[in-house]
């Protein structure tokens, strides 16, 4: 049996083990690969950075624990940036577990920004079912859509909401999305129907389907794609977190997968398997 024939019959558990080692080692020993900032991420940063003082921004947490490793770092990074610029942050969720994701993200930045006050600097409006329909209603009347916050406090008693009547009162919206309803619906309604600038972060899987919205019309102002997008944003705000730490492991894992695919393809031709398939 030739070398490539042996490789073609390799136990897949060896590949799992190599990937495991390839991911674990760079997490323990930092390799500090360079991280290039891409245009869509820079545009999200500029949107947040260049807004007027005291801007009102809406962050939508449309994901759950299953995609937390990818999206939570970008939510935390954008929250830090927003609090650094003294913006008023309104959080909502189109996914039930988004409420919890929002609370956890805010808790994690409180140590760095101890002076932020609930109801004055930020509010968690909670979850509302309906997706596209809910966003449409938020465009007409925020108070009817969210009569109370996540803790059941009436909106009329929350100071940050005094100047918010509908979506157009926000300077911009950032959606963190891992599916539907999510960023696509925010673009379709908040931007395309109400003209509010929309940027966002999504799982890497969603990036190809959201990229067409990064166009001349700026349907999406910018996009943070997966862990890499989060890492780039952390680098831009000079606050490296779990995403930056994970990028070395990501790079090694990708390198291993490229090597596996290359070896597999060479083996496929060298062992003549492609001829067998065609017969």
């Amino acid at each position, binding site marked *: 049996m030739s070398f490539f024939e042996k490789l073609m019959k390799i136990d897949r*558990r060896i590949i*799992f083990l190599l*990937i*495991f080692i390839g*991911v*674990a080692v760079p*997490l*323990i020993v930092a390799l500090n690969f360079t991280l290039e900032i891409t245009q869509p991420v820079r545009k999200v940063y500029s949107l947040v950075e260049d807004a007027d003082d005291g801007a009102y921004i809406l962050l939508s947490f449309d994901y759950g624990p299953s*995609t*937390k*490793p*990818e999206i939570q770092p970008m939510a935390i990074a954008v929250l830090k940036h927003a609090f650094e610029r003294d913006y008023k942050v309104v959080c909502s969720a189109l996914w*039930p577990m988004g*409420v919890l994701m929002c609370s956890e993200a805010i808790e994690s930045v409180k140590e760095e920004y101890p002076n932020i006050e609930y109801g004055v600097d930020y509010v968690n409006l*909670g*979850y*509302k*079912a309906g997706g*596209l*329909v809910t966003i*449409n209603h938020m465009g007409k009347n925020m108070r009817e859509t969210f*009569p*109370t916050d996540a803790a*059941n406090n009436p909106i009329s008693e929350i100071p940050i909401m005094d100047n918010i009547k509908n979506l157009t009162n926000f300077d911009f919206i950032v959606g963190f999305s891992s599916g539907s309803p999510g960023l696509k*619906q925010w*673009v*379709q*309604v908040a931007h*395309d*129907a109400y003209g509010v600038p929309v940027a966002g972060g999504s*799982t*890497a*899987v969603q*990036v*190809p389907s959201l990229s*067409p*919205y990064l*166009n*001349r*019309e700026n*349907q999406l102002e910018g996009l943070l*794609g*997966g*862990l*890499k997008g989060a890492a780039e944003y952390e680098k831009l705000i000079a606050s490296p977190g*779990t995403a930056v*730490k*994970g990028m070395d*492991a*990501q790079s090694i*894992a*990708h390198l291993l*997968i490229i090597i596996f695919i290359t070896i597999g393809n060479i083996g496929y031709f060298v062992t003549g398997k492609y001829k067998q398939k065609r017969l």
Partner: protein
Amino acid sequence: MALTMERLGVWIGAALTFAIYSFLYKDNPVYKIAEQIFVGISAGYWFIYTIFNILKPNLYTPLTSDFGNNTLLVLPAILGIFMLCRLVPKINWVSRYAISVVVGTTAGLALIRTLQSDVITQMSETIMNPFSGPNAAVILGKWILIIGTTTGIIYFFFSKKHTGAFGATAKLGIVFLMISFGAAFGYTVMARISLLIGRLQYLLGEWLGIIQP
């Protein structure tokens, strides 16, 4: 005490992670137990979460505290009960009314928005002057966008046999489609590896304390 419970939670999390990953070696009873625990806890958690975080604040509390101003909520409440009728074979047809409202409303709204955002705007974004641009890279990008979109659509035109010049154009469309599938595959790999990174950060950080969580 709280700290002990927190540590216990971390240990349970680590044990369940290993139990789930043990499937990569081979299917085994430990994996099955972890899987059943996950399904059971998820179902129970969602049931309670739905009642207290969705039904109660959005329906029960508004109706009981201020019925006069929330009369309209009776309609979704009735439709919700209709939906539950699926569980009773003799009257399960009633649920079709609720489903028809949901499907009708969503289809109506989504159709307009999808046409505007995904068809009209995307088409207008493809209509551009391919000869103008600040540099050669931008002009090349415009040509790739126009050729890729056009040939990709031609591939999906099945009313004419894919032969001759038409077939060659469709084949070029396949090349662009393959490139987009490759990009999608790359992003999918990145997403799955990110989840593994998240788990390993948990194991190495919160559980073993080798790295900073």
